[in-house]
């Protein structure tokens, strides 16, 4: 009884807060209203520790989305985690996560940002290792250590900011821009955001974090936690303009988008495909942010949160139905058995691809148009459009594998939706992923962007999408007479398949050498030479000499007296003889 009630109570209050936030957002938006609350904790030698809260339309809107997604995810967990013994612990962890996220969203103060940021990292670690098997432990370590790098950078920003005497960064943006040394801070912030949003050197942890239960993946690793980095950069975006490092960020995030798109096409794990598509969209957000268009990044962040959470929830239903099997090679033809989930999945997939008038269309199309208006170089243009095509490619491949191909696990089977709870919770997000794009468009962009493009450039998105769709169809329909392209270019395929060996380069590789070095130092130095020369060695020398002296002192005094008598007599005789 209590098991169900904690889910319902949490759902109810989170949903209520979400609605309240929505109305506040409308109010703040219309009247262009900002509330800045400050509570001074302590002040010493011109340094003030201030707890502050910033409520403007951006934080309220983001909070509304986070609370909405977390409420439906908790409602969904009631059914998904129904066989879990410690459901209360699970829900508490999710609530703790939501709390950290909200703290991060509303704080204009770098210290409280760190609190929220660290809370996110810690709770996400606890949630990744929730299923306590070896795979989860490894993934959890990878996640925690990768995010730790970002935490350290934020800590360094805090130390650096002591020069200003306060940590309310919003007041110092313009000063920081003028000071060359203080610009270091912006680089640190960018690196921190890159770890949280899993951009290229740090992107190995996001697919690994899929060891978490699926509701967690829906809430944490698709819509909220990973967008914390993007949100931080949106908040700092005044500081970031005209930086050389921002150009590197554009390159890295573009490459992230491309790499994730390619890897998603080679991946067979259902959740990892969706995680890689999240990574691709995060690359899109980061890259548009690094061109200085923060509102567009924020817009895409919100719409993406909706349909990606929905996609993960659909994946959860499918995984439950398949008895924990996540490999899409086992699946197929599920649309005949779970039509509603397939419908939701198709809608969210289409929203992800940017099919017109669904959520993803409004943000993605606008972003691509703005990219074309910017007249960037051909390489960046190539990355954007190939990645857009790749989105279509892997989405279509996923749909083909799940819904159109034959079922591949058993010969006699009966698949079904388990209950209405999951379907109901998905319904909310389904409506949001249809309407939120146009809704937010009306709210946020009250004036239209003027876009002026040649017709073929404007239709480029459609061309690459159609091409991607064709490729997705071709790669997923396997015939007897076709040759295996994977083994034909085996080395290249495995390079692309394993995320450009990113896990090996950035995490396993580094860990391996440093752990190896630690092991060597333990063996050779701590337990070897230093022991030989200090502890054990000194003891051995002492022991040896003690035994030697003991020989003279204790055992045979008589012999020694006799021996020394004879010795002295010989010396005496020799002296006599010489004289």
């Amino acid at each position: 009884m209590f098991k169900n009630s904690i889910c319902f109570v949490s759902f109810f209050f989170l949903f209520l807060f979400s609605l309240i936030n929505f109305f506040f957002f409308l109010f703040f938006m219309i009247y262009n209203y900002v509330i800045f609350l400050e509570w001074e904790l302590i002040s010493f030698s011109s340094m003030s520790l201030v707890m502050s809260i910033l409520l403007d339309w951006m934080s309220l809107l983001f909070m509304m989305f986070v609370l909405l997604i977390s409420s439906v995810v908790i409602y969904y967990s009631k059914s998904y985690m129904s066989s879990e013994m410690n459901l209360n612990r699970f829900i508490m962890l999710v609530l703790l996560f939501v709390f950290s996220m909200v703290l991060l969203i509303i704080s204009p103060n770098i210290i409280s940002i760190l609190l929220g940021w660290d809370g996110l990292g810690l709770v996400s670690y606890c949630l990744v290792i929730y299923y306590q098997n070896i795979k989860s432990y490894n993934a959890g370590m990878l996640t925690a250590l990768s995010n730790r790098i970002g935490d350290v950078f934020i800590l360094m920003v805090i130390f650096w900011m002591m020069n200003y005497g306060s940590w309310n960064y919003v007041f110092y943006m313009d000063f920081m821009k003028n000071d060359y040394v203080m610009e270091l801070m912006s680089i640190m912030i960018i690196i921190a955001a890159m770890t949280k949003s899993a951009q290229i050197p740090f992107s190995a942890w996001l697919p690994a974090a899929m060891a978490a239960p699926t509701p967690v993946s829906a809430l944490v690793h698709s819509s909220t936690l990973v967008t914390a980095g993007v949100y931080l950069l949106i908040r700092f975006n005044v500081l970031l303009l005209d930086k050389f490092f921002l150009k590197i960020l554009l390159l890295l995030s573009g490459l992230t988008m491309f790499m994730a798109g390619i890897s998603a096409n080679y991946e067979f794990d259902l959740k990892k495909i969706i995680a890689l598509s999240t990574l691709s969209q995060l690359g899109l957000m980061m890259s548009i942010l690094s061109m200085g268009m923060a509102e567009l990044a924020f817009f895409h962040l919100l719409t993406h949160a909706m349909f990606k959470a929905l996609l993960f929830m659909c994946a959860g239903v499918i995984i439950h139905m398949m008895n924990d099997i996540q490999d899409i090679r086992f699946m197929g033809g599920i649309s005949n058995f779970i039509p509603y989930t397939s419908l939701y999945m198709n809608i969210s997939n289409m929203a992800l691809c940017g099919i017109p008038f669904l959520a993803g269309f409004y943000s993605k199309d606008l972003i691509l148009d703005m990219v074309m208006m910017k007249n960037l170089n051909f390489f960046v243009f190539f990355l954007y459009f190939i990645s857009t095509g790749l989105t279509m490619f892997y989405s279509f491949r996923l749909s083909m594998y799940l819904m159109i191909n034959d079922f591949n696990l058993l010969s006699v089977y009966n698949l079904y939706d388990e209950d209405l709870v999951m379907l109901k919770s998905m319904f909310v997000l389904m409506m949001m992923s249809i309407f939120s794009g146009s809704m937010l468009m009306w709210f946020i962009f009250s004036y239209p962007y003027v876009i002026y493009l040649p017709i073929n450039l404007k239709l480029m998105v459609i061309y690459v999408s159609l091409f991607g769709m064709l490729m997705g169809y071709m790669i997923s329909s396997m015939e007897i007479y076709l040759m295996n392209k994977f083994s034909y270019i085996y080395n290249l395929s495995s390079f692309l398949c394993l995320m450009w060996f990113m896990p090996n380069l950035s995490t396993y590789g580094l860990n391996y050498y440093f752990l190896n070095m630690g092991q060597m130092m333990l063996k050779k130095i701590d337990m070897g030479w230093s022991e030989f020369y200090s502890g054990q060695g000194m003891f051995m020398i002492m022991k040896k000499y003690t035994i030697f002296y003991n020989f003279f002192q204790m055992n045979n005094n008589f012999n020694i007296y006799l021996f020394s008598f004879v010795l002295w007599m010989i010396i005496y005789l020799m002296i006599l003889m010489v004289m």
Partner: protein
Amino acid sequence: MANVPFLGLKTHSQKVCSLYKRVLRNLEAFYDRRNVYRYQAVLMRARFDKNAKETDMRKAVELLRQGEEELFSQIHPLPKKFATSPGGVAYERVVQSPDWVLDYWHPLEKAQYPEYFKKREQRKKEFMAMWEKEYGKPDPKDQHH
């Protein structure tokens, strides 16, 4: 398998069978449609059958080595695993602790569930009685375990 002289020592035919099975699993990972997989599996079976009657042992060992090498160079980076088997995503996700763990609970912990443990002690006694009735009491000199 009672007459295996040394554990871990495999005969040549065992090694070939093991290779064959791994090759089939690898093909399964590549060709995920069943009919395509069967076609490829038949082709692979023909390759194995071609050399099945090889009597020259040196040649057979060389063929086996080549086969292993080919498999290694063609192994799928993301092998198809069942979720609850070793290497799968849900392996050891639900661990059922063995029954004897309950005997090592602290008395205070046991006191939380008095009825269950009372019944458990009773059942243990009954089981001992049943065992002794069927197999007799253990020999006191028999100390090994």
